[in-house]
């Protein structure tokens, strides 16, 4: 099941202008593939480049959409997720306006509502960023 644009509102609580995932291609228990096309009016674009906070937020929201996919399948509302820790996040290139990010998220561990994930962001064959992140999911 592919989620696009507003469909993703069912998976994550973020909304424009802070909405940084526009497609969820697939998700399983252990990984997910997401994407984002960089629009010119994206708040994290500067001089035609999608800058650091945009890349990191895209990873965080991809991880949130991955978690939200699980809650959606169980018929629950998406939970608020917060970044608890970022580790070894290397930003090789800044994507350009019009580029399509393709992102792979892998779940490394999940303990007491804390999810540890690894992320890899590409534009076609170009590696944009790799990152490890701890996300806290808040129970209502």
């Amino acid at each position: 099941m592919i989620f696009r644009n507003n469909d993703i509102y069912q998976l994550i609580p973020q909304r424009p202008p802070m909405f940084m995932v526009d497609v969820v291609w697939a998700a399983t228990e252990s990984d997910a593939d997401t994407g984002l096309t960089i629009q010119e009016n994206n708040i994290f674009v500067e001089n035609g480049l999608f800058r650091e906070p945009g890349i990191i937020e895209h990873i965080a929201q991809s991880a949130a959409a991955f978690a939200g996919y699980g809650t959606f399948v169980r018929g629950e509302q998406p939970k608020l997720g917060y970044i608890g820790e970022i580790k070894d996040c290397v930003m090789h290139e800044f994507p350009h306006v019009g580029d399509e990010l393709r992102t792979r998220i892998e779940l490394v561990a999940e303990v007491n509502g804390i999810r540890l994930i690894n992320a890899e962001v590409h534009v076609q064959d170009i590696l944009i960023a790799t990152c490890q992140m701890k996300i806290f999911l808040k129970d209502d």
Partner: protein
Amino acid sequence: MIDNYYTVLNCTTTDHRSGVVNVRLNADCSIYDGHFPGNPVSPGVCNINMIRECAEQISQCKLRIKRIKQCRLTTLITPLTHSQLDVNIDLSEQSDGSLKLNASIGNEGENYLSLKAELTDE
């Protein structure tokens, strides 16, 4: 980059390598329309970007983040509960020409976010 996210109230540096920037978060920034609707929470990534911009102000150089070695976000920051913040910047030059950054965001002795990163000149 993000319009109206914060206002610099004061910036103190003696050597353009370390210093403190006192800022006020603006609750009417449009980012809070979406993060989250009816529940404004300052995005961690915007605070990391604010650190980068404060490092630019201190060093008088345009900087990009090459690598975040570690960033710990220990306190939920909102513009309502944490309107004034100190951004502490400490830069040191590496042998490869990059800058090592140790930074934190806090207020009145409390630490909300700490960042270790490598920056390069743009």
